[in-house]
Structure formats: C-alpha cells, structure tokens
C-alpha cells in the first residue's frame, strides 16, 4: 500500500496536537495552555506557531521537539515550528478545560478577576497565604492553605 493521499487538514493536525502536553505540567495540553497559536497546512507541509509563556521559559525547546515528534508519529514528516512573541501570551488564553485540569492536578488556576481570594486546590478553603512569589517554575507561586495546611502551587495571573 502507498501512503494515504488524503490531504492533511488543519483540524486533523490540531486534534493530534491536543495530545501534546506541557513538559513541566504534564496534565495540560499546549492547546489548553494557550501556547498553541496557529496551525496551517500547505501542500502537506505543516507550520505550527506557538506563543512562549514566559520570555525565559526553559520548556519551549522541549515543546517544539514534542510537537515535531508527535506529528512524525502520525506520519507527518514536514513540520516547522515557529515561536512568536506577538500577541504576548497571557493566562487568559488558558481554556476552561485547562483550568479544571490544573485544579485537579493540585495547581490553583490563575485568578480570573484580581482581588479574588486564591482557593486551596485540595480543600477549597480561601484561607491561604503566599509563601513565595516564585514556585517550582517561573509561571507559578507557592502558597499554603491555613485550613488543611497543605502547601500548593498557584499558577500566577499573567496579563
């Protein structure tokens, strides 16, 4: 059998890329994180445009490799990944599903409105304190729940 001759569609590529996860938070896909910006297909050549989260995010290289690798497994060999800084990524780009996934993983999602309290992802209490403005990665801060006493990561609001 020869390779399928059905032309690649952008929606198909996007569906495949739905399985590419953030290397540092492996429960959220790059699509739900809002990092995946655009996919175009030209003559079976795929161009994927991504928006980096933080300027110095060390996960960007891995994300690019993961995208290429993932599409290769689907039989797509011609892939180019472009990193674009405009529009600047913000946490508003995280989808509703992405927010739920962060929460379930134990990371408090970014506040949608400033001034709201940050809830503990374990017990839901809003009686929480910031321990450090930076957590395990540039995009997170470290909090502690004063009720269940668990420390937790908060995905910083970045707008």
């Amino acid at each position, binding site marked *: 059998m020869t390779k399928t001759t059905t032309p690649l569609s952008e929606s198909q590529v996007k569906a495949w890329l739905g399985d590419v996860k953030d290397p540092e938070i492996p429960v959220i896909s790059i699509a739900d994180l809002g990092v995946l910006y655009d996919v175009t297909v030209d003559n079976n050549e795929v161009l994927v445009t991504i928006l980096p989260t933080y300027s*110095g*995010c060390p996960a960007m290289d891995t994300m690019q490799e993961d995208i290429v690798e993932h599409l290769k497994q689907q039989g797509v060999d011609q892939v180019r990944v472009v990193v674009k800084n405009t529009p*600047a990524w913000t946490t508003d780009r995280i989808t509703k599903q992405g927010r739920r996934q962060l929460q379930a993983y134990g990371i408090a999602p970014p506040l949608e409105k400033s001034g709201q309290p940050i809830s503990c992802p374990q017990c839901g209490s809003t009686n929480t304190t910031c321990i*450090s*403005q*930076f957590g*395990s990665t540039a995009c997170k801060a470290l909090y502690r729940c004063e009720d269940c006493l668990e420390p937790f990561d908060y995905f910083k609001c970045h*707008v």
Partner: protein
Amino acid sequence: MNKAIEHYLLRLADTALTQSQRIAEWCGHGPFLEEDIALTNVALDLLGHAKLLYEQAAEVSEQDVSADDLAFLRDVDAFKNPILTELPRGDFAFTTLKQYFVDQFNVLLYQALMDSQYQPLSDIATKALKEVRYHLTRSRDWCLRLSLSTDEAKQKMQAALDDLYFYTPELFETDDQLNQLMAESIIPDMSALHNQWQQQVDELLNKCQLKTPTSGWLATGGLRGEHSEHLGYMLADMQFLQRAYPGCEW
C-alpha cells in the same frame, strides 16, 4: 538609523544579561530555599529578555552574527550596560536594593517603549512588561521588609543605599545615537523617565525610612564601553564555555 537601533538594543540586552548573571550567582546561596528559587526565576526572565533583544540586534546588524555570538563572544569594551548591573552581588540587602532600582527602571522603560515607533522594540516591551511588573512587586516588598525589621537589616539596607545610589543616574545616560532615537520617538525621553523613576524611588525609600546619600562618585561610561574591573571577571566566568569550546551547543 539601524546602527543607532543596534546600539540601543545592545545597551538593553547587555543590561538584562549582566543583571541576570549577577542574580543567578545566588543559585545555591540564597538566604533560604524560596528566595533562592525566586532569584533564579527572575534571572531566567531577564535572560529571556536579553535573548529577545540580542536576536533583534543580530537581525539589524550589518555583520553576520547570532544572538549567542553577541552574548558570548564580545569583550568588555563592547558591552554597553551601565556599571550598576555589573557590580558584584554583595549581600542580600545589596542584591535586593539593586534589583529594586533595576525593576523600577524596567517597568517605566518598558511601559514607555510599548509606544515605540520601532515595532520590534514595542513587541518586546509588551512581552517583558508583564514579567518585570511582577519583579517590581517582589523587590519593593523585600525593601520594606528588610528596612523595617531588625537594626542589623536596616543598617545593611542603608549601607547598600549608600553604596549603590550614585550608580543609578547612569541608567538614564544618553549619547548622540540615543538622542537621535529619542528625537524619532523610538525610545522615550530619558530625562523624563529619570524624573518618574526618582519620584517612585523617593517614595519607597521614604517608606523604608532610609536616608538618601547627598554626595558620592557618579558612575558613567558603560554606554561607551568603559567599565569597572568587575565586568571582565564576570565575562571570564560567563563566556568560558564558548571561549574554550567554540561553537559548543547544549
């Protein structure tokens, strides 16, 4: 015009890189774990800004250079950062106050640069501003916490202020090329920016109950490639790998 833009992009990139390198030196030496992580995360953001700025400088340069070449293969007299950012990291009070001065400068500068007539600079500013605002919140908090706590902490903050204060005007220094960029609204008016910065700084130092020194040696020269002895040692450390193993990749 491209020459002046390249000159200014390098000024900003070198400032971000040297500041980043100095606070990254705290890795493993922070006063406690959370602060160790915070300092290195700020360093990472600044390194990201340096990368964006060097990439743009390489793009406009007449020479065939990459962002890495600019960061790792230029010598002391080609660096354009103000002397402030190359000063050794000192103690935690010194690092904190220096970071605050730089953060306050970055926030006002990137806010203004969002209106730059040079689109790539405006794009970088939009991206960087989101990060430096967060840095400023953190360094302001620390200045207050240290200055208003024990006598020892207060003394160290006062000593840091006495040592650092006269290095800060150099952040706003201009030359013929920068004046040309200001005239074309590519960069903001530096003396206006200095006034805004001074106002914010005076307000915070007042809250911190610190006393601004009245006289001292005024630093100058970074923009012309005239640096303190400290930059050479920093570059020897930072550029070692590329000098010893040219073209080496991670």
